[in-house]
């Protein structure tokens, strides 16, 4: 089981990926936030939103968690723009943040597992208000890789979590082609 990247080598790619994803869903420019630099603080009563997915490579057992975290304010803006409504509800926020994570996860998979025909991506699990999403990482796991960006005055964060437990996430079905062909 290996970590499929050297963080320093992919940092720029991950920053670009996060910026591209935010730009595509919000239609706004996102500026990378350098490591160690504080971004604009969230409001005291802000309830952050989180989306978590996992990539698992069945060939060697590699597991990598992909977590996207945004402020509640940004999640609200995101859902408002995605659903073209001024007052998105909690379900809209969960769906919007889940899709943000899904796009990020798919692009991380293409970036880091592109040549692997055996890597699989889970479906996103999203939560609001700091609720815990399945993202347990063993103590001996390599340190997470984190990149951040500022968009519309708020911080968005993309974290890669090596060896993250993935059993509690939702996975697309694996069906053998001969089963499909037998369907009416």
């Amino acid at each position, binding site marked *: 089981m290996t970590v499929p990247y050297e963080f320093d080598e992919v940092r720029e790619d991950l920053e670009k990926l996060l910026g591209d994803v935010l730009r*595509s*869903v919000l239609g706004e420019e996102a500026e990378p936030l350098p490591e160690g630099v504080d971004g604009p603080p969230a409001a005291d009563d802000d309830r952050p939103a989180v989306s978590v997915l996992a990539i698992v490579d069945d060939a060697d057992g590699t597991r990598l968690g992909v977590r996207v975290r945004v402020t509640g304010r940004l999640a609200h803006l995101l*859902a408002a723009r*995605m659903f073209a409504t001024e007052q998105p509800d909690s379900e809209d926020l969960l769906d919007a943040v*889940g899709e943000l994570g899904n796009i990020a996860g*798919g692009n991380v*998979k293409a970036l880091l597992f592109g040549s692997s025909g055996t890597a699989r991506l889970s479906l996103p699990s999203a939560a609001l208000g700091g609720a815990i999403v399945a993202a347990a990482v063993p103590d001996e796991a390599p340190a997470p890789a984190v990149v951040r960006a500022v968009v519309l005055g708020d911080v968005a964060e993309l974290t890669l979590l090596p060896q993250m437990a993935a059993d509690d996430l939702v996975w*697309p*079905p694996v*069906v053998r082609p001969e089963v499909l062909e037998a369907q009416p």
Partner: protein
Amino acid sequence: MKIVVADDSRAMRMIVVRTLRQAGLGGHEVLEAENGREALELVGEHRPDLILSDWNMPEMTGIQFLQTLRARGDATPFCFVTSEGSEEMREQAAAAGALGVIAKPFTADSFSDVLSSVVTS
């Protein structure tokens, strides 16, 4: 034209429909499905002219959906709209009979480039 849009994310289904419009390919009847199995039923009922499908979905994935359609002799133009645009997936999609793969994040131009040959405004 009738277009089936299959994606487990309601947000992404809305974005796909909006992007079709922005690409000058709007004004068509859109039928939405949350997974490949639902989409398969819609195709049987409504005989669409185009299918836009996510790859990773619960119940039945996009590639399983496409393979099932083609195994039934259904040649409806089919395009993936997916967050995973790796070369391997593009090859798999082409081998299964897909028109193309539009990778998320996408632009209206991406839609025009791939779909303008099969969708009229």
